[in-house]
């Protein structure tokens, strides 16, 4: 009889164990696939619910999880530690070996506990029995039907989301666009701050005054980058910056530039260099040139010419900067009177005033440009949020972001929703081509309407809606309108109310507005992501 050793048994055990590992790996890989699908569906659904996941990202998530988890599960299952004795016991049961293998293995580990004859007999018996085993029958390598069906179910669900989830993907695209737009605006604000701080024409106080609202806006965008908050922040920052700009500075600047052009053309005149600086719009440098002008070095004819030029300069600045004009006139007068010292003193004071004016102009221009950028930024954020309708309706209040060159602002959300008269200012180039543009006040005043005849400038609009919800909406005739059937919906003092207050208790009109709001939401005109905001707003107003 051939001597049987433990290695014969362990060799067979190793073969079986390898097969068991493979079987486990296959089983767990399929389970991992199911887990991957479930995870990807759950995460994907969450991402879609929060409008964060784009279609390609959704696909990437599914592919990554449904490939990685089976791999991870399969490898873990394959390399999971299997104790040889535990495996032997399992094989005894699987192959109906009646505990031959496990007993033999145990005996070989403790050979002192049993007579050698019994040990060798047991070992031989176990090896003989194990050779009759067909492991492929008891340990088949296949995929489980149950797990397969579950996997198919989840594949179907993911397919359903993929095919039917366009609304969610669109919302995610909009949310992503808003996020990018907000980030771009934050970067632009940072750039603006740096430009302001590098501007030599501005004093430190002016720089601080200009950068403070920008820094606040930057922080606010960082804290809450949502569409509503971002638009609100950009708009309010634009308003703050706009308030820092002087409406007359443009006219003043143009007047100085015009005068500078004329002076620069007079070859050899004492004020030619001052004129050149003014023509280039650099009033501060012009002031320095003026301060450096030494009257005593001029000949009498040159002094006379200088007096004339100063008079001309004073005349051109009379309407925009009377103080500077007066100082220039005093200098001219002193020259004519042959008092160079007084003339020099007056010129010095004029240079000082001119420098201050230049700084004011620079500050105002910067503030105006920054305000414009803020308004454009708000428009870009709204546009990124899929706000075509929103944008269009805003234009009905004279606020066409991104097109107007001047500041455009207005209470573009609440006043519009409530249908109440909102105020807006802007110089957008929209001509009311959108459906809502027929509302009163929607046409911008594209003509000279400001002081100084400077062209397009800000103005105040009066918003008086006649068609709520655009064309096709209910006809609402406000009290006092000249439309037939204009019902009086409120009784109160006939004197105009305080700005921003209503003369009609809102609890009387709330129901009507709520109904209109509901109709608007149900009509599908409101973008999905704004529905909740609008609902919350009306809920907060509920009397």
């Amino acid at each position, binding site marked *: 009889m051939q001597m049987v050793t433990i290695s014969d048994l362990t060799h067979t055990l190793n073969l079986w164990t390898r097969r068991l590992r493979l079987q486990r790996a296959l089983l767990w890989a399929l389970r991992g696939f199911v887990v991957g699908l479930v995870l990807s569906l759950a995460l994907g659904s969450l991402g879609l619910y929060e409008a964060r996941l784009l279609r390609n990202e959704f696909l990437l998530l599914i592919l990554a999880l449904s490939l990685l988890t089976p791999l991870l599960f399969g490898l873990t299952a394959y390399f999971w530690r299997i104790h040889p004795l535990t495996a032997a016991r399992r094989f005894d049961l699987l192959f109906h070996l009646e505990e031959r293998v496990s007993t033999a293995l145990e005996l070989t580990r403790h050979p002192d506990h049993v007579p050698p004859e019994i040990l060798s*007999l047991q070992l031989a018996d176990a090896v003989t029995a194990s050779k009759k085993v067909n492991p492929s029958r008891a340990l088949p390598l296949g995929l489980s039907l149950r797990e397969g069906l579950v996997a198919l179910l989840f594949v179907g669900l993911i397919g359903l989301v993929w095919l039917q989830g366009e609304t969610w993907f669109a919302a995610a695209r909009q949310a992503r666009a808003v996020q990018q737009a907000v980030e771009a605006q934050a970067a632009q604000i940072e750039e603006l701050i740096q430009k302001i701080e590098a501007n030599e024409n501005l004093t430190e106080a002016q720089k601080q005054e200009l950068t403070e609202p920008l820094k606040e806006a930057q922080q606010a965008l960082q804290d809450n980058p949502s569409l509503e908050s971002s638009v609100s922040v950009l708009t309010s920052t634009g308003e703050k910056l706009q308030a820092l700009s002087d409406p007359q500075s443009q006219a003043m600047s143009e007047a100085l530039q015009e005068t500078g052009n004329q002076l620069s053309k007079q070859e050899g005149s004492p004020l030619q260099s001052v004129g050149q600086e003014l023509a280039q719009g650099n009033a501060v440098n012009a002031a320095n040139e003026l301060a450096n002008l030494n009257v005593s070095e001029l000949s009498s004819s040159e002094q006379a010419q200088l007096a004339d030029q100063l008079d001309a300069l004073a005349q051109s600045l009379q309407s925009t900067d009377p103080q500077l004009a007066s100082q220039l006139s005093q200098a001219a007068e002193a020259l004519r009177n042959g008092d160079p010292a007084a003339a020099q003193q007056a010129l010095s004071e004029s240079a000082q005033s001119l420098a201050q004016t230049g700084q004011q102009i620079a500050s105002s221009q910067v503030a105006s440009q920054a305000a414009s950028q803020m308004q454009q930024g708000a428009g870009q954020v709204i546009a990124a949020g899929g706000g075509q309708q929103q944008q269009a309706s805003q234009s009905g209040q004279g606020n066409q972001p991104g097109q107007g060159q001047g500041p455009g602002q207005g209470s573009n959300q609440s006043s519009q929703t409530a249908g109440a008269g909102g105020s807006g200012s802007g110089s957008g180039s929209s001509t009311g081509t959108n459906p809502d543009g027929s509302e009163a006040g929607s046409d911008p005043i594209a003509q000279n309407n400001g002081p100084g005849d400077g062209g397009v400038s800000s103005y105040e609009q009066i918003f008086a809606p006649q068609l709520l919800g655009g064309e096709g909406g209910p006809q609402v005739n406000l009290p006092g309108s000249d439309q037939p059937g204009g019902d009086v919906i409120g009784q109160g003092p006939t004197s105009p109310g305080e700005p921003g207050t209503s003369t009609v208790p809102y609890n009387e009109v709330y129901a009507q507005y709520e109904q209109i709001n509901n109709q608007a939401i149900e009509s599908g005109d409101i973008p999905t992501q704004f529905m909740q905001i609008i609902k919350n707003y009306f809920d907060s107003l509920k009397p």
Partner: protein
Amino acid sequence: MALSVDQFRKHAEKIESEVSKVIVGQNEVVRHVLVSILAGGHVLLEGVPGLGKTMLIRTLGEALDLKFSRIQFTPDLMPADILGTEILTDQDGRRDFRFRPGPLFANLVLADEINRATPKTQSALLEAMQEGSVTVAQQTYRLDEPFFVMATQNPLEMEGTYPLPEAQLDRFFFKVNVNMPNVAEMVEIMDRTTGKETAAAGKAASGADIVKMRELARGVPIASHVKDFVARLVLATHPDDSNASPLAKKYVRYGVSPRGAQALSLGAKVTALFNGRFNVSFDDIKAIAPAALRHRLLLNFDGLADGVKTDDVISELLTAIPVQA
């Protein structure tokens, strides 16, 4: 000289073969009785009268070439009748008490209808069964090896029976139920017993062979997880155990004692050898579990009132307890 496994099997097969010459059918009963003998335990056979219980034991006695004695238990049987007694003898004018051994002094004792005797007499067997000795008049006498008690009893429902005390029951290695033979067996019984010739069993093994076979059986290894299964199974018969089955929780008053685990382990070793294996399997345990445990489970009043059998509880436990923890 130690016995080999092949020799063990040959002896065992020969004993069964000789017994089967007389006993028709009842293979499982014969096997269990033989397992019990080879494990060194005593057997209690229960069945209605006329099923061949006594015949089986007597045939085994013939086949094993052992000193055989039969005690017919009756209500008036006294302990001294089975243990022996001291009698006054007169030898050379000198009177002395001399011990006269009773029928218990044999290798194979048939305690027929043991539950017809009073508990006092039944208990007289306790020392002999557990210690292999008898104490009379402060004198202890060893019984010859091997010593087996093969008891038969009628079902307790029958009149004139005294249930065996729990301690007495626990000392029986197996309790084997003898059931009615089927039609073919019944015909065979009629043929064998109503003809001119009566079958007789020949000698198949000696007392020395039985001792050697017992020693070999004790050397059969049991894997640790099989032992663990035995322990869990026995503990699960206790109603307070966490692994107890619903039937055990509801109907069992006292579970199986550690003697039950010993009987399972030893009986399974012999069964393994009978099956040509050198190790104990779960199937060996399951095959002998009812015989080893049924008389060690004490049912409560609800169990007795509802007619629950201890075999039902054991069967449920064998299904409920996983072979691997």
